[in-house]
């Protein structure tokens, strides 16, 4: 009974926070327009038409990530963004370390704590850095220097390299196929949108694992 209470109340609060988030986010262009004038609707629509692929990947993201994240973590992650490269890896790493089942209520609790902590730290670091960039040009010069800039480009790869080490050791049988498949896809379709590649990776990986499960190989 208690489990139902916690999960339901998380969904209720999560929905409420999403509505507040929508209001907060929409306030930004409204205030900017009040200060600087309202743009032509046709300009906005034509701009939106060009980025139509992103709302579509948005739908794919909701379907792909929300079962992995669990209730509390889903609402927080979709509001704060950077899910694939930061929030999801952070949550799953926390679940591994805590030694709880990802699909249990304990897993939900750990993932929510991980993503909340990650959001707080990320928001503060970005704020401090941007203020430092704006008021101290030397700092932005250092962060974009030839030695540091290429390293920042690799941050996501170090996240996934390290995670691969713990995941692949445990699940090596189901890991070979998706890596080979994604590498092949990229070799032949180099300009593929990264969101689409992630989706393809997830689907192929699930199909591969399901087949191996049915064949009793895992």
């Amino acid at each position, binding site marked *: 009974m208690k489990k139902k209470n916690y999960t339901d109340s998380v969904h209720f609060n999560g929905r409420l926070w999403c509505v507040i988030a929508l209001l907060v986010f929409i306030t930004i262009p409204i205030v900017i327009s009040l200060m600087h004038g309202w743009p032509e609707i046709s300009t906005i629509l034509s701009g939106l038409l060009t980025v139509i692929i992103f709302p579509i990947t948005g739908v794919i993201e909701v379907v792909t990530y929300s079962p992995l994240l669990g209730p509390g973590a889903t609402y927080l992650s979709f509001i704060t963004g950077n899910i694939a490269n930061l929030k999801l890896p952070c949550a799953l790493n926390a679940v591994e370390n805590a030694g709880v089942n990802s699909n249990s209520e304990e897993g939900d609790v750990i993932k929510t704590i991980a993503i909340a902590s990650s959001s707080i730290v990320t928001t503060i670091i970005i704020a401090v850095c941007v203020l430092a*960039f704006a008021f101290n040009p030397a700092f932005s010069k250092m962060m974009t220097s030839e030695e540091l800039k290429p390293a920042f480009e*690799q941050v996501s790869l170090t996240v996934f*390299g390290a995670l*691969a080490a713990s995941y692949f050791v445990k699940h090596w049988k189901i890991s070979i196929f998706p890596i080979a498949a994604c590498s092949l896809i990229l070799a032949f379709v180099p300009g593929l949108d990264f969101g689409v590649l992630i989706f393809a990776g997830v*689907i192929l990986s699930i199909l591969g694992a399901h087949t191996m499960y049915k064949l009793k190989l895992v």
Partner: protein
Amino acid sequence: MFTDFKSSGTMFALALMVVAFIIVQSFFFLKKAYTRGKELGITTEKLKNTITSSALFSVAPALGIAVTVLALATTLGYVLPWIRLTVIGSISYETVAAEAALKAADVTSIDNELVFSAVAWVMTLGSLLPIILVPLLAKKIQKTVSGAVSKNNKWVDVISAAAFIGIIAAFLSSGITGVGSSKEEIVADGSGVLSVTAIVTSIIFMLTFSLINKKYKKNWIDALALPVSMVLAILVVVAICLFAPEIAQIEWRY
């Protein structure tokens, strides 16, 4: 600084409002989950380790996100990219959305305030769909999944591991065979020596930590393993850039 309309006092106030909103919301969920965790009998040590480990884990990626603000700042000023990358945003979306809005307004740079408003609208509206869909769909999707869990636990464990491995595979293959959408003149954004070094060294460091922990069996080693492996791998990349810049520039897919 405040004389430029893109970085006015009001813009900074808007950004701080968004920052405050995210932090209050995160603390709300943190407190709720922490209390529930205690009720479920998860030890304080585990809960605190989760907070520390996740906070450390986020430092390097957060710095990476902060640097991307700089890429957008030349056109948009500091504040709008800051707001956008604090919520929902991702660098790939924000860059494309800003370019799309500029193109729609038939200009190449933001020299008038109306274009800036248009860019703000496109960047915001184009990213809102997931926040509308999550309240509508998340509960349903998760209920379906937990229904499947109660039926066949082992299958669900395999499939959820597989789903995440699919994401890992997409990222790793982008470092090995590359994403071809990048511009040639930017060093290290495609796949090459640096991307493969990042992957291989982070794997080696992580495996080393897990071997060490097999011997000492300390929870804090587990909690620190991933953030420390990431930082060490990044330091190796920086060292290659510093001491062997000609090797660092080798890329097979720009």
